[in-house]
């Protein structure tokens, strides 16, 4: 029989039973759309992690104390708690030609009072290089100078969220801001960076000169972290070696000894952060995959019922000269058309759901064309696999018995 005839017959019989066809496809529709949406959610969060890391700054390296080592040794100039100091920063600046910027990071937080009200947020002490390292521009004002850092000037740069919360409608530039009761002068407002991979608002921050925060707000000598940037992508690994050498020198470590600091680059951080979300994607995807399988069993179930229900129809077709293969192909085509239509509707549905999620929730699902393609192909395979048994059953009926079937 001609393919066009086969297709025509299958479509006709599907259209004759719209409700049954819809119910049959429903399993596939739900299966396909949930596979796509689940994977899209997982993949979206993975992508956002990567994006937020690249938004952290190009060629950035992060140096942090190696806590295990620091605590077990518990000695040195830092007095025990932390292993990174301004001496390290000076050494890095002098002996690492592959670095284009070095900045201390002093983490703090506190209550802000200023403008129209008060607001609680994190306050970070940084050096002028920080803005270059993190590739972060100001929307207005200026960054602080080296001299302001050295002289522990009480100036600060505020993030977009802080500006919006405290200074609605007023230009924050030059305004006073009290951070934990210490008065600061606002000299700039940061560009908006949006949320990071953990959904944190990166604009909810106040940046001040590192030494100002260290001595005036925290009252300690050690720094929490050091951010540096390599001169280019290619010099990243050289920079890592240079840092290692420099810090081993200042920390007086013997060659081969475990360092009391850790250098992490972006790809390691991306790897770490996306590990969990990868697992999550796989888990969500496989749960949804099971639902697609259940949808396939639904097709088989309804096809089986329909073979029994349509025994007479099959008998009529056979008596008019349909070969077994024609009947087999008819039922198989019906199953495939149903499952592919279900697949297509599922894909449309998943796009709508993804759109809705992006619009109304924090999630940013990313629909990978490959996943769409595989889900569609898989739904076709489900149709063939689960449609075959009922189709075979129909094809093997004896014409005269089928005609007599009541």
């Amino acid at each position, binding site marked *: 029989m*001609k393919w066009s005839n086969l297709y025509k017959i299958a479509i006709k019989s599907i259209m004759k039973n719209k409700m049954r066809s819809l119910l049959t496809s429903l399993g596939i529709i739900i299966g396909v759309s949930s596979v796509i949406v689940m994977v899209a959610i997982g993949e979206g969060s993975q992508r956002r992690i990567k994006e937020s890391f690249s938004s952290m700054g190009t060629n950035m390296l992060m140096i942090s104390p190696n806590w295990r080592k620091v605590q077990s040794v518990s000695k040195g100039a830092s007095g025990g708690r932390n292993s990174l100091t301004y001496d390290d920063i000076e050494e890095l600046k002098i002996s690492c030609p592959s670095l284009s910027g070095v900045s201390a990071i002093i983490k703090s937080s506190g209550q802000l009072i200023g403008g129209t009200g008060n607001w609680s947020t994190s306050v970070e002490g940084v050096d002028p290089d920080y803005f270059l390292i993190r590739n972060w521009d100001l929307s207005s004002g200026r960054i602080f100078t080296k001299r302001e850092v050295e002289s522990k000037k009480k100036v600060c740069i505020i993030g977009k969220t802080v500006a919006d919360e405290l200074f609605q409608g007023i230009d924050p530039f030059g305004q006073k801001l009290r951070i934990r009761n210490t008065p600061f002068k606002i000299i700039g407002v940061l560009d908006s960076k949006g949320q990071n991979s953990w959904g944190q608002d990166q604009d909810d921050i106040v940046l001040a000169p590192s030494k100002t925060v260290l001595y005036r707000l925290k009252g300690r000598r050690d720094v929490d972290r050091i951010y540096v940037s390599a001169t280019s992508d290619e010099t990243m690994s050289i920079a890592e070696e240079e840092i290692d050498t420099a810090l081993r020198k200042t920390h007086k470590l013997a060659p081969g000894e475990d360092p009391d600091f850790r250098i992490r680059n972006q790809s390691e951080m991306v790897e770490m952060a996306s590990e969990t979300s990868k697992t999550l994607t796989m888990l969500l995807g496989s749960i949804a995959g099971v639902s697609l399988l259940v949808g396939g069993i639904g097709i088989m179930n309804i096809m089986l019922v329909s073979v029994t229900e349509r025994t007479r129809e099959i008998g*009529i077709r056979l*008596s*008019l000269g349909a070969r077994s293969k024609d009947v087999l192909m008819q039922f198989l085509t019906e199953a495939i058309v149903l499952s592919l239509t279900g697949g297509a509707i599922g894909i449309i549905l998943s796009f709508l759901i993804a759109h809705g999620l992006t619009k109304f929730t924090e999630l940013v699902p990313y629909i990978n064309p490959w996943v769409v393609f595989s889900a569609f192909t898989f739904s076709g395979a489900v149709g063939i696999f689960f449609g075959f048994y009922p189709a075979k059953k129909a094809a093997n009926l004896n014409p005269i018995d089928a005609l007599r079937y009541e």
Partner: protein
Amino acid sequence: MNRIIEMSQVKKNYYVGDVVVKALQGVDLTIDEGEFVAIMGSSGSGKSTLMNIIGCLDNINEGEYVLDSVNVKNLSRNEYADIRNQKIGFVFQGFNLLPRTTALENVELPLLYDRNNRIKHPEIKAKESLDKVGLSDRIDHEPNQLSGGQQQRVAIARALVTEPALLLADEPTRTLDSRTSKEVMALFQELNTQGITIILVTHERDIAKYAKRNIVLRDGKIIEDFIVEDRLIATEVLQSVTDGAIHEMV
């Protein structure tokens, strides 16, 4: 004349549990091209069984059956299907139209299964066939929107659409009133004069009189086989009925 059917000692058994029902117990039958045969017999005598075998819907257990010079006894399932499609038009006892399917689509159906694509434009051919049985104004009606007689004519149109050499009809007039029955017989007689061989099963003696030859079955055997002497011509009968009615009115 070409011999279209040649049966010798055909036997057919049905097995229901341990019981063997001997539906046909040695049938010898030859039918030539252009014949018009009515098969008669009491209920359960094996008429439908014989028709199903002639129509290649069922196998035989014993004996030989040669249809149009082909011994069909040992043919495969596919070859059976093709014979049904190419050589035979079957009008069933209960019409057997596809429900929720228009008359046109029903008539078109056998053409969709034609592997040789003998007919190039199935839809046009199906319309012609419906036209032949006088149903061109009902092509888009589904079976449940048609009267019994109209359904019967759709079934006949479907049987004729493949231009079969042999038309089989199992009790085609059973559910019809006497006038519609006569119209169907008129159609059969016309088709027969055009060269189609017709075999029909009937209970009614006067319907059998429209055929050229009658065969009587009893307990799965042919007990009578004769040429109809006083053959009725359906068009004439219909004419006289109409005349009679007019006469009475006057």
